[in-house]
């Protein structure tokens, strides 16, 4: 394809996708898909090779996806996790193929209670300072003695590795758009404050115990996190008001928390974070993995078009009924189907999902959750082909 044709294709796909995510009706249902750990083996690479070398990720996308007629992809960079930074800081909380794992092992997150209960007050008073001076030394074996030669070196190398990775990622994304015409799906990241607290700081066990033992501290910490989660989304997304910020949401899925606990601890500060980003014109892809059916009425209180709601195990009919007038819906195809189903079952599921969620627009076809490493290529291709076949308005 000539450069002009690819540029025209890119603009057409961008228009299709951005119309849908604003709950409008484009020419056809946009198709979004993520590159991930399912891909390297089909392109002849190991997991380690593509994690460490973004150029190989670009080649992998070009090998596998050049002839795919989809609109937008996400996942280049495999979650924005720079292996060189993990290695140079010897981070305890991530284990990667290479220094810690065999070349084709999925990366592991080593969850611990890195933040102790007695740290709450200091964290609430000065979050950024606490993270740099107290949290980083606990998660980084090379940075465990701030001020020492090894620690100073770890900080220099770690930040250089991050910058290097970010620069390479930007170039690779631009080349993929330029060569294949795929529009970007997301730009930047934010989280629910309760997840920021529970995922990486207190850990799941710690934060769930805190609900019983020190509920007021959770609430104070989450309130302290709100402006940081807003700013993190703005900074990592570059303030882009066209492409949404991505919010992977974890403990908010039922039944991690009971509905009363969800109301008290999870929802208020997530709502504030989303509203804070929307005040800047930035929408959020509400990546609701799991089942969020009990909470749909509350989610419906968010400002119109401020989110795109991803349907995983949430009741799709209810999601359409409660949220469909205000927000774009994404997903609805179970990721397990791509691993354990057949192409025929995938096609049937896509048709059913489009029939249910796509009328009147405001829908993007995708899986409802992360595509696992054992997803089969023929099923992925069946999803995309079915999306084009049944997705015309």
């Amino acid at each position, binding site marked *: 394809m000539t450069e002009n044709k690819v540029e025209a294709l890119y603009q057409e796909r961008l228009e299709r996708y951005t119309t849908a995510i604003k709950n409008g009706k484009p020419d056809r249902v946009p198709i979004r898909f993520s590159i991930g750990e399912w891909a390297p083996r089909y392109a002849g690479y190991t997991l380690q090779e593509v994690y460490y070398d973004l150029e190989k990720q670009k080649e992998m996308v070009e090998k596998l996806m050049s002839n795919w007629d989809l609109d937008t992809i996400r996942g280049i960079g495999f979650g924005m996790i720079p292996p060189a930074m993990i290695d140079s800081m010897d981070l305890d909380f991530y284990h990667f193929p290479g220094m810690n794992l065999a070349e084709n092992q999925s990366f592991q997150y080593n969850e611990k209670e890195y933040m102790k209960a007695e740290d709450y007050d200091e964290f609430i*008073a*000065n979050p950024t300072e606490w993270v740099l001076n107290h949290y980083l030394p606990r998660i980084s074996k090379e940075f465990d003695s701030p001020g020492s030669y090894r620690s100073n070196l770890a900080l220099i190398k*770690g*930040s250089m590795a991050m910058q290097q990775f970010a620069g390479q990622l930007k170039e690779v994304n631009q080349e993929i758009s330029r060569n294949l015409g795929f529009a970007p799906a997301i730009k930047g*990241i934010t989280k629910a404050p309760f997840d*920021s607290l529970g995922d*990486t700081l207190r850990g799941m066990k710690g934060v769930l115990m805190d609900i019983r033992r020190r509920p007021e501290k959770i609430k104070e910490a989450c309130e302290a996190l709100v402006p*940081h989660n807003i700013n993190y989304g*703005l900074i*990592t997304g570059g303030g882009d008001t066209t492409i949404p910020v991505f919010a992977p949401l974890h403990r908010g899925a039922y039944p991690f928390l009971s509905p009363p606990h969800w109301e008290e601890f999870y929802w208020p500060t997530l709502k504030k974070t989303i509203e804070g980003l929307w005040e800047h014109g930035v929408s959020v892809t509400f990546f609701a993995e799991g089942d969020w059916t009990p909470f749909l009425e509350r989610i419906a209180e968010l400002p119109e078009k401020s989110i795109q709601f991803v349907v995983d195990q949430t009741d799709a009919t209810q999601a359409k009924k409660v949220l469909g007038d205000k927000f774009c819906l994404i997903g609805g195809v179970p990721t397990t189907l791509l691993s354990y189903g057949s192409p025929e079952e995938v096609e049937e599921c896509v048709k059913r999902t489009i029939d249910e969620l796509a009328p009147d627009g405001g829908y993007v076809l995708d899986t409802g959750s992360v595509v696992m490493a054992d997803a089969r290529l023929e099923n992925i291709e069946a999803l995309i082909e079915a999306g084009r076949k049944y997705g015309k308005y």
Partner: protein
Amino acid sequence: MQEKNKEFVPEPGTCLSWEAKKAELEEVPGKEEIVKTSWDGLDKQAYSFIWWFVQR
């Protein structure tokens, strides 16, 4: 050095904003806007580096 290490609470979105740094300087003889743009740009990158470890 002790003055710099006194309790300092950066605004969300910043680590040490240009405004905070400027308060420590007697004057800025050159074009302040150029320094500010450079300083705040790098400060944002430092902020996103620090908070990356939490926002995983």
